[in-house]
């Protein structure tokens, strides 16, 4: 090694040491008001295909190491890829849902680099002619405003395997179960201006792929992961700043924190007269900081060229039409319909349509027993949501089915029980004590609507509280609540509150 080269190496090392960035310790003194943040996202979504993108191997998550890797996934000498048509259909669904252009002819390419989890030494992806281009997704900024985020391209590609650094002592193991699983990579335009917008876009995308049934969107299992491109520039400048790319973020929170810390880091460097280096970063969620990623290969020259083992992918008008016809209702359409058809607020509609399963549950509830949509919405956003969160369950794992919740809400609607009592019944239902009617009957929770019975209770309460009665009659009408409370207490909550109110006013 020459002296010069040694010096260069030392300098590189020093630079790397200096590049461990922490957001929290410098947020305080940043004048972020002068800067504009430019963000673009690349999202890798695993498709829910039965088999891999170019082989017949199974795709289930969590199988024993290398049990879902056949000769093609292992890149045995002589094997060839054959394109999975189901993946193509899913990509087209996505393209249609984002109002994108579906390429009638697209090309697969080889991206060449060496890494142990990449058995062929190249990844089959799409480079110059992707299957989807020029789409968009609208995101809600608040209750009134939306923003259109452009999607530059979405292409089909295969996933890599995994290196297992801890599995085998003194060696690195390779698990190729994931190698070859179908992905679409969705590349947004640099239209996003804050971490909040980026997360809103990501959530909308997540909702969409789940609506379409093309991905389970499971972020912990890596089915939906995100690379974030971030740059900052002075607000009055037209010139884009140098960007960095933070790789492989697999939760909404990490995306938000990674962007915040990276923006803070870049602004601090620029404000102290430094320069941003275009580089790839990783996010340390424990330390809440970005840091340079050790690169997989020495250089970035992937030597793309058209994959000679696959013919150009040709898509006919008929294929697109038939997929278009079978497309489910999309999140934005459902949101608008919920407001129009059920007279829900934007807030309620947003909550109910954010997730396909939640929307289905809601519609099942109101259709099962002709339940008032607002009542159903309130219960789903209140009690049900709390119970699910409490046990970290998704709505399809709910202990109370839509039909059973509908039966409970029906008893509120027909005045069999009050809302307050209904919460007790809900609690019992959650613990599998039976249906609403069974619990109401068993626990004797039926609402008292017999006027004479309520009258008797009111008379007893008034007789027992002469001083309050006098005060009320001398003008302290606020004491009505006091009397209502006592009557309800005496009825053990079962008296109809409206009736109690009306009768009390008469008697007092």
């Amino acid at each position, binding site marked *: 090694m020459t002296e010069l080269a040694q010096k260069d190496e030392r300098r590189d090392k020093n630079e790397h040491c200096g590049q461990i960035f922490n957001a929290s310790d410098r947020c305080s003194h940043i004048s972020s008001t002068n800067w504009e943040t430019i963000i673009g996202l690349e999202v890798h979504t695993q498709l829910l295909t039965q088999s891999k993108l170019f082989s017949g191997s199974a795709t289930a998550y969590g199988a024993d190491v290398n049990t879902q890797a056949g*000769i093609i996934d292992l890149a045995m000498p*002589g094997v*060839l890829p*054959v394109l999975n048509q189901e993946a193509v259909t899913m990509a087209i669904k996505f393209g249609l849902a984002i109002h994108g252009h579906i390429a009638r002819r697209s090309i697969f390419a*080889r991206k060449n680099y060496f890494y142990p989890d990449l*058995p062929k030494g190249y990844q089959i992806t799409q480079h110059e002619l992707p299957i989807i281009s020029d789409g968009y997704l609208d995101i809600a900024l608040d209750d009134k405003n939306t923003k259109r985020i452009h999607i530059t391209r979405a292409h089909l590609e295969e996933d890599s395997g995994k290196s297992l650094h801890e599995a085998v002592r003194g060696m690195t193991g*390779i698990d190729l179960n994931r190698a070859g699983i179908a992905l679409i990579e969705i590349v947004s335009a640099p239209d996003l201006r804050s971490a909040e917008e980026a997360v809103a876009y990501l959530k909308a995308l997540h909702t969409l792929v789940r609506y379409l049934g093309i991905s389970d969107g499971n972020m912990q299992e890596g089915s939906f992961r995100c690379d974030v491109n971030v740059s900052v520039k002075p607000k009055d400048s037209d010139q884009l700043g140098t960007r960095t790319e933070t790789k492989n973020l697999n939760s909404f929170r990490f995306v938000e924190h990674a962007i915040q810390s990276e923006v803070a880091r870049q602004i601090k460097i620029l404000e102290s007269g430094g320069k941003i280096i275009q580089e790839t970063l990783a996010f340390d969620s424990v330390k809440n900081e970005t840091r340079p990623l050790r690169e997989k290969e020495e250089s970035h020259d992937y030597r793309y060229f058209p994959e000679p083992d696959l013919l150009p992918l040709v898509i006919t008008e008929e294929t697109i039409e038939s997929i278009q016809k079978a497309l489910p209702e999309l999140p934005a359409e459902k949101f608008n319909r919920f407001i129009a058809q059920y007279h829900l607020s934007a807030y309620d509609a947003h909550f109910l349509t954010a997730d396909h399963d939640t929307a289905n549950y809601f519609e099942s509830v109101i259709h099962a027993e002709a339940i008032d949509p607002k009542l159903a919405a309130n219960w789903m956003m209140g009690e049900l949501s709390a119970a699910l969160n409490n046990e970290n369950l998704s709505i399809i794992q709910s202990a109370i089915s839509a039909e059973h919740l509908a039966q409970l809400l029906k008893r509120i609607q027909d005045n069999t029980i009050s809302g307050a009592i209904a919460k007790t019944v809900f609690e019992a239902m959650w613990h599998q004590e039976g249906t609403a009617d069974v619990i109401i009957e068993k626990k004797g929770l039926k609402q008292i609507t017999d006027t004479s019975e309520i009258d008797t209770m009111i008379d007893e309460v008034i007789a027992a509280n002469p001083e309050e009665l006098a005060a009320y009659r001398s003008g302290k009408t606020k004491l009505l609540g006091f009397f209502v409370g006592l009557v309800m207490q005496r009825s053990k909550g079962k008296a109809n509150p409206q009736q109690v109110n009306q009768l009390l006013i008469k008697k007092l």
Partner: protein
Amino acid sequence: MHRKTITELAEALHQKECSCLELTRYFLDRINRYNPALNAFITITEKEALEAAQEADRAFQQGTAKKLTGIPIAHKDLFCTKGVKTSCASKMLDNFIAPYDATVVSKLNHAGTISLGKTNMDEFAMGASNENSFYGPVKNPWDLTRVPGGSSGGSAAAVAAHLIPAATGTDTGGSIRQPAALTNTTGIKPTYGRVSRFGIIAFASSLDQAGLLTQTAEDAALLLTEMAGFDSYDSTTVEEAAPDFTKTLNNSIHGLKIGLPQECFPEHLDPKIKTVIDQALRQLESQGAIIQEIKLPHVMMGIPAYYIIAPAECSSNLARYDGIRYGYRCKGPVDLQDLYERSRAEAFGDEVKHRILIGTYVLSSGYYDAYYIQAQKIRRLIKNDFVKAFQSVDAILTPTSPTTAFKLGSKSKDRVNMYTSDIFTVPVNLAGLPSISIPAGFVDQLPVGLQLIGNYFDESRILNVAHRFQQATDWHRQIPKNFE
């Protein structure tokens, strides 16, 4: 017995003139006797072959024997054969036992043929002399001091010396036809997409095509009918069913138009070779063929375009040989980079490394447009030349190789000279057309081949012309004298 063609051997088996076991033993004996001099085989699968022969005899007893049941063949050592070493003549795969059969192998097994072994070749099919093998060069049975051509040199030498009635080969730029020409055998490369590439260790995916080395065009037609057809494991195979190529062998060639591209008969062409080709042309004319001159203006740009496209694809195709999952791994790697570098440096031969380097270079950013894209443009021009030519002729005829078999070692230091061996065959691969080389005569006791090029998926036509030519001549019946 070894002078018989496959057609004749099949007849003998069906007439019970001999058993499959006897036939297999006979050819195994010839292989064991002559292979040490030729080095045509890397692996001889004696045990498996004898078992398969006994099974074939049972099929004859039970009346379930097919036309080709019991016919011995051999496979070039880049066809994956389940449970058998498949080395690609490389140190890299010296320890590789294929876990599956190539589609061609399973189709020929299904047809009843028996594989006696795996033939020698240039490492990863890169070469025109068979000198680039980890297992040493193959010798030409016509003169043991000369090369048999390559890369399917082992298959060609084995068929030429009648150690095996026929053998599979692959042809990326001439690797079947050039050795066929240099060994007095018949070698066919079908249309790209006619025969499945699944299970064939890839060199250059857009050019590789499997074919055959046989004694006659008729044998080639018999075997190709079994090998060809759509394969759901190879997206580049065509969906239409392949015809029975034997049905049209005897069609008349009266009035058939054969084009002679001026570019393939340059002034500096060896006059002795030209004389042989001229005689063959007169023979075809006497059978009613009409010879006419045509132009293929870009065909001489084939070699430079080929030596960009083929290395580009090979640099990517050979990336999987990384010492991780199978094949050679260097001893005591200190880290991942060392594992990659030493495994590949120690196990690939010079020619393979040379082409990987060229291919990596021409795909690199900044050079891609100047080399790879430019080469693809030339490829398109050459293809268009042929498409235009086939509007006026039924077949095209050229010499297969500009020279007869050359001396071992005479060109191995001179790459460009070696590469021009394929000057007449390479354009055919770039265009993806079918082509056959057949024996046309001798120069100084060394065989000369002529190449017939057909239109897309018109293998039937060139097999027909070749067969009619062989009916009228006996060049293909000549056997090298030490192997009679």
